[in-house]
């Protein structure tokens, strides 16, 4: 098994050395798709002799594909799970992790809704079905229609960890296959509430200010998120096989370069290095140290 992998990788190296165009395969999280696509486009226009394939499918698909060597970089909007780490460890793969950008989640409502701000506790009650009418949080007498992402998307999981403190959503929540569908629905539905990535925010939906301590409310923006004021912020990851570093390193370096990070900002994400993740909610960074002995991964930061 290991031998076959070694041979494969040396073949890879030889092909790259000979200038044979081997496409870099990037696969995973749908949150990272638009960003990666735009970056790949820029990268390709500078390095004309290289080739990149970007595929979605979800964080789980990306990580599983990395295990099976059907992708070179896995995009993930969540950290690898404990069970996934164990299978990496079992197959002897050494996985490297890079944070390529940060993403803030905005809580959005219909523009006609007079509610402007909510605390974390109120959000938890709404998404768990304990508050079902807008008048209980200072709005009109209208039923709250709660939109969520699909059960297993990284966005869903992060919102659950951060806002619901790991409790489950109510079962009658409407789950949408993609962020675009949430925007469309919130725009059409008067009593709607949903959450979307900051990059997707547009004038057709209204973003709420959020407070975790119940005192200071902050509206989501790149600035408030970068200064650590806006609380719902998560890192976005690339994972790759450490032995393929020479093959994928150039693209990753490009993303982390000032030029790449400028494009990150342009796409509505928060660049790496500029951020100071808000204290107390960033589960991922906490867990970071906890499990690092499992696979000896490292966080590469510029």
């Amino acid at each position, binding site marked *: 098994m290991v031998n076959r992998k070694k041979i494969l990788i040396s073949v890879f190296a030889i092909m790259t050395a000979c200038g044979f165009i081997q496409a870099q395969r990037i696969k995973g999280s*749908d949150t990272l798709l638009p960003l990666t696509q735009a970056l790949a486009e820029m990268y390709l226009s500078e390095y004309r002799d290289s080739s990149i394939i970007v595929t*979605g*499918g*979800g*964080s*789980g*698909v990306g*990580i*599983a594909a990395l*295990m099976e060597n059907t992708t070179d970089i896995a995009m993930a909007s969540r950290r690898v*799970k*404990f*069970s*996934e780490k*164990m*299978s990496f460890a079992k197959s002897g793969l050494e996985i490297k992790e890079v944070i390529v950008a940060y993403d803030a989640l905005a809580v959005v409502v219909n523009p006609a809704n007079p509610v402007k701000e909510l605390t974390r506790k109120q959000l938890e009650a709404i998404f*768990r079905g304990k508050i079902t009418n807008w008048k209980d949080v200072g709005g009109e007498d*209208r*039923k709250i*229609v709660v939109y969520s992402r*699909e*059960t*297993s*998307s*990284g966005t*869903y*999981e992060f919102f659950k*960890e951060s806002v619901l403190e*790991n*409790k*489950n959503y109510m*079962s*009658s*929540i*409407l*789950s*949408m*296959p993609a962020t675009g*569908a949430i925007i*469309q*629905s919130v725009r*059409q*539905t*008067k*009593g709607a509430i949903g959450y979307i990535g900051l990059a997707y925010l547009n004038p057709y939906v209204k973003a709420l200010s959020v407070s975790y301590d119940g005192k200071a409310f902050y509206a989501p923006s790149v600035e408030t998120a970068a200064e650590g004021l806006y609380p719902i912020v998560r890192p976005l990851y690339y994972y790759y096989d450490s032995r393929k570093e020479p093959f994928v390193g150039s693209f990753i370096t490009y993303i982390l370069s000032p030029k790449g990070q400028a494009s990150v900002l342009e796409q509505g994400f928060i660049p790496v290095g500029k951020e100071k993740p808000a204290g107390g909610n960033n*589960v991922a960074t*906490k*867990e970071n*140290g*906890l*499990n*690092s*002995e499992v696979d000896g991964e490292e966080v590469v930061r510029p």
Partner: protein
Amino acid sequence: MRKLVEKGVKWLLTLSGFVTSLVILLIIGFLFTEGAGLFRKKIIEEGYVLALNKENPVRTMTAEQIKAVFDEDVTSWKDLGGPDLAITTFRLEDVEKYFTEEELGAQYEYAGEKIAALVDANPGMVAFVPESMIPENAELNFIEDSNISPKDVFVGAEWFPTATPSSLFGMWPLLAGTLWVSFFAILFALPFGLSIAIYMAEIAPSKVRDVFKPLIELLNGIPSVVYGFFGLTIIVPLLQQVFGLPVGESGLAGSIVLAIMALPTIVTVAEDAMRNCPRSLREASLALGASKWQTVSKVVIPSSMSSIASGIVLGIGRAVGETMAVLMVTGNAAVIPHSILEPLRTIPATIAAELGEAPAGGAHYQALFMLGVILFFITFFINLCVEYISSRNKAKNR
């Protein structure tokens, strides 16, 4: 030599004759091996344990109870058959609430000991931690883990495939949603489908028919994504306004889109059946002085009833398996539907939406394959019904 060729070709043809049977076997085999693994999975997430204080007598908890405890809906051990003691839940992420980073060590190497000590000190605490972190000599009790039972899966009413510490795979809401939305789709499609079939077979001049027939075929050819897109941008907001619903994404929107999609199947089969109605029957009816309508309603339709029925069943089959359009318009809420105006979630939509994010080989992944098995058998059963109806039809005509 020529004989050899003949023989060889015969074998080749025989082989390809059985390809479809082989594919069916392979589908069953692969879906089953992946799906059946679900029942060998434990209730509690792989690699983790639920640790209790050693004073705590509770040993077993069902998946629902675990979820209720960690959602803080159940707050006393009394409800679980234990002492009258408040429950405190502990997850790995809570570790910094209790300890400083120095206490845990730079690599969190002391975290396991600290957590064990914490549980030991709090009689009401239940801790959800990786098995590998618990020190060997810790004096703790653990919740006994059991396999996921088929009963919980097939009749369970809650679909929470990513809940931690224990996921719920109740497939009943999804199954009910699938059947509910398909049922209404056929209810809507039937009057339209039969009307068009009768119009095309009996009323329309041949020139109009020549235009209609390819149109209906084209309707069949439009990709489901296009229907979904159309439904989301046109039908959903329309329904919301017309019925004054709080939510536009509903079973109704799904049924309408599915009705449009199932229509061509019903029309084609029903029209063929009516056109194949023996000429002698018609002529006999007309000769007895019946009008054209009487002939159609009293002779042609009854005589082709079983073919029409199989067309309807095929239409149901198409509706049950439809994925992308339903995914985009039904709202996908995993609750057992009580009215068609509520959002619901179907099996195909669940597979398409969740397979991407489920870690390969995990319980969630296997549960989705199990859904695939269920879906396969529903359509298999539907097809057997069609076969049965049409074979009875043949026997009758003979």
